[in-house]
């Protein structure tokens, strides 16, 4: 079903291109070339997908537990901040020790920031929609305050960003020709772990049980409050890793504009990926390719990059539509009628 939704989105996207005076065939060829035409293009696609996959997992897991984490953006910023603090605060360590600490710091920062709405929901029944959004703004402004103030690079030419992180904290490039850094591998490992947790551990079972029937789960002896807090912390931690990966793998500095809304796109990725870790990886890669392809096409045939955002939005729309019971029933009726006609 999601595959059909993506095809439908591409078809309508082609229509949009035609309206804006671009031959859809040429447009898509240019986009494909931009996304996959050569090792470096593939590398950029994958690098763009990395934070989407990590933050997407950070939405997908809580969603399985009946929680909507729409504050991924804030968890990304805090994860990036704590990782940067460890990166800058412990210079001189060997990479084998420093980098794991930095990664861990990113996870812990995000987990704390995600754990707060989890705790507020579990303890005071506060709606996580509101608390995650509000904490998102707080996180952004904390980072903004710091990079304009104490963390500002004196030699940064006035830009609001931090000092460059030491080499021992940089996610190393692992495929030199493709410029793919360790962050992408980390995202794949996280997706695999998320899949295992969700389907093969007692904790994952508790998560899904609380999501599917909180009262039934409670009566069966599961503690929904504990599960809520832990799930939210896990989701926040994954989003925190997204922020860490973007700073340590791509930008090498913390700024207050390093995320172009990955936390928001993560919601789309998680929903379009049907909240399954495998789906999140696939949709994350697709969206990464879409953006990279659109940038390529804008250079080669001057196609507006907003086309990629339109296709992204259409994908979500079609996925939501394909999940609609009403539309699905109507479709089945049509199919049945057609079968009936032929027989």
């Amino acid at each position, binding site marked *: 079903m999601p595959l059909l939704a993506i095809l439908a989105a591409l078809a309508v996207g082609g229509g949009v291109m035609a309206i804006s005076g671009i031959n859809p065939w040429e447009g898509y060829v240019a986009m494909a070339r931009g996304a996959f035409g050569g090792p470096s293009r593939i590398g950029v696609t994958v690098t763009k997908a990395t934070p989407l996959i990590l933050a997407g997992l950070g939405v997908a897991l809580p969603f399985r537990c009946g929680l909507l984490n729409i504050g991924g953006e804030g968890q990304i910023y805090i994860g990036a901040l704590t990782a940067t603090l460890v990166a800058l605060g412990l210079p001189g360590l060997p990479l084998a020790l420093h980098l794991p600490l930095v990664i861990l710091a990113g996870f812990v920062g995000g987990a704390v920031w995600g754990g707060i709405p989890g705790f507020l929901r579990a303890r005071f029944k506060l709606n996580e929609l509101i608390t995650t959004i509000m904490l998102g703004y707080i996180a952004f402004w904390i980072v903004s305050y710091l990079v304009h103030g104490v963390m500002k690079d004196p030699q940064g030419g006035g830009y609001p960003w931090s000092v460059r992180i030491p080499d021992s904290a940089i996610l190393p490039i692992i495929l030199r020709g493709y410029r793919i850094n360790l962050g992408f591998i980390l995202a794949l490992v996280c997706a695999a772990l998320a899949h295992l947790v969700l389907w093969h*551990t007692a904790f994952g079972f508790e998560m899904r049980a609380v999501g599917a*029937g909180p009262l039934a*789960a409670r009566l069966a002896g599961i503690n929904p409050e504990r599960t809520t807090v832990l799930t939210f912390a896990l989701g926040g931690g994954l989003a925190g890793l997204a922020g860490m990966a973007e700073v340590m793998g791509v930008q090498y500095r913390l700024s207050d504009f390093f995320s172009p809304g990955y936390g928001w796109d993560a919601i789309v990725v998680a929903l379009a990926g049907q909240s399954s870790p495998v789906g999140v990886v696939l949709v994350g890669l697709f969206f990464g390719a879409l953006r990279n392809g659109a940038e390529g096409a804008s250079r080669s045939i001057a196609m507006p990059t907003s086309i990629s955002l339109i296709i992204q939005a259409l994908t979500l729309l079609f996925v939501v539509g394909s999940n609609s019971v009403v539309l699905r029933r109507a479709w089945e009726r049509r199919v049945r009628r057609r079968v009936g006609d032929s027989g």
Partner: protein
Amino acid sequence: MDALLRMDSVTKSFPGVLANDRISFEVAEGEIHALLGENGAGKTTLMRILYGMTSPDSGTIYWRGKPVRIPSSHVAIGLGIGMIHQHFMLIPEFTVAENVALGLRGDRSPLLDLRGTAQRLEALSAQFGLRVDPWARVKDLSTGEQQRAEIVKALYRGAHLLVLDEPTAVLTPGEADELFAVLDSLRAQGRAVVFISHKLREVMQISDRVTVLRRGRAVATVPTCETSQEQLANMMVGRPVVLQIERSPARPGKEVIRLDEVAIRSREHHRNEVEDISLTVREGEIVALTGVAGNGQRPLIEALFGLRRVSAGHISILGRDVTACRPCDLVALNVGRIPEDRQTMGLAMSLSVYENLALETYDREPTCRWGVLRRGELRRQAQLLREEYDIRMPSIDLPVGKLSGGNQQKVILARALRRRPRAIIAVDPTRGLDVGATEFVYRQLLAARDQGAAVLLISTDLEEVLCLSDRIGVIYNGQIMGVLPATEADETRLGLMMAGMPLANMPDVLPPTHTFSNCSPQP
């Protein structure tokens, strides 16, 4: 006399199921016609066709002798057909009058004439003895009142034929009696009623004729006065049903469940919802706590299940003080619990059947080691339970929400009883189940009792209580009116207690009534 409504060999198939197979069915004016059948027999499909919610594959509907097509509910309403669904179609925030006026054009259209609506509502209320306040907000009404609002809404739209889909499933016995009085007056004034039910007793009590459906076919239509509960039950399931469950005398042993002067304070109002409840259940016996719904059962159940704190008193189970227990402690203590509400308390509807079966035991060896689940083992155990408890489904991987109510209850039963608990708390364990499934639940509970379990049965179904229990307590207004041995229980005594008379105050000699313990059918 020509029938008001005649449905002639109506057939409807869904992929894989023949829901209605050439069903013919008629209702006369001034008649209450019961449509009886097990869950999935095709009652609801037939009525959905009548109400224009699905179209039949073949067959004709005659209304007042003329063939009609009913492509939508709108047309059905226009003809004079009203439908009272199980789940009410009312807007909780609106008043009764607003709900009734919804979707209608008044005389002063486009202005709203609620006052006129309310006046006509009151006239209808008086005409049919339907007490309902037009200005009350629906959310403040009891379930019985909401149902009356639905009926009044249908009558307001000119319904001549009312279809009630399992109307008593949501009602307390008292509310059901009020509903029957309303149906009586509708019949007396020439309206027709289709009464969908699978409760034999009610069908015998209220209907003039009964049509029995079984697996999509109309088995028979008989005048109610010429049939009996046994005969109807046989027709429904197609085999003789042992409504009279044979049971050995109880051999009670040690005390297992003990409530000591339990009181529970209401959170909103500063009064006790439950007061001074003391009750014991010994091993090898079933003790029932019955009463009209809303007399303190819910807070008591919540306290027993560890969902709510008591404000005074103690509860102990199997010698352990469980007064301040959480649900997980009860799971550890192996207390079998069958909650009343399958869909929210009993099951996680979107999880698979085998996961629901494992909900209390997943985190133990051998299904779980070091926090890692062994799905093969979970599924193997589920297959065994599926055979033992005769849970019918295509696959244990199916979401439990896709199962019929009876099979869902079997899943709950299997989970509650799989570890052979010594203490069982069952709340309305057969609500909404058909005869076959009900019998199955009864047998399982009795078998558990015979193996020495202590069973506390909290139920509003008097028939069930009389059929299963060894001792019967009645709760009224949060207090226990008395506890009787089942052999001394009769409807008069229980009825008086349910209405608030303590057993101690009761005269020794009561007017003679039929003792009908062990479920003998009503004469």
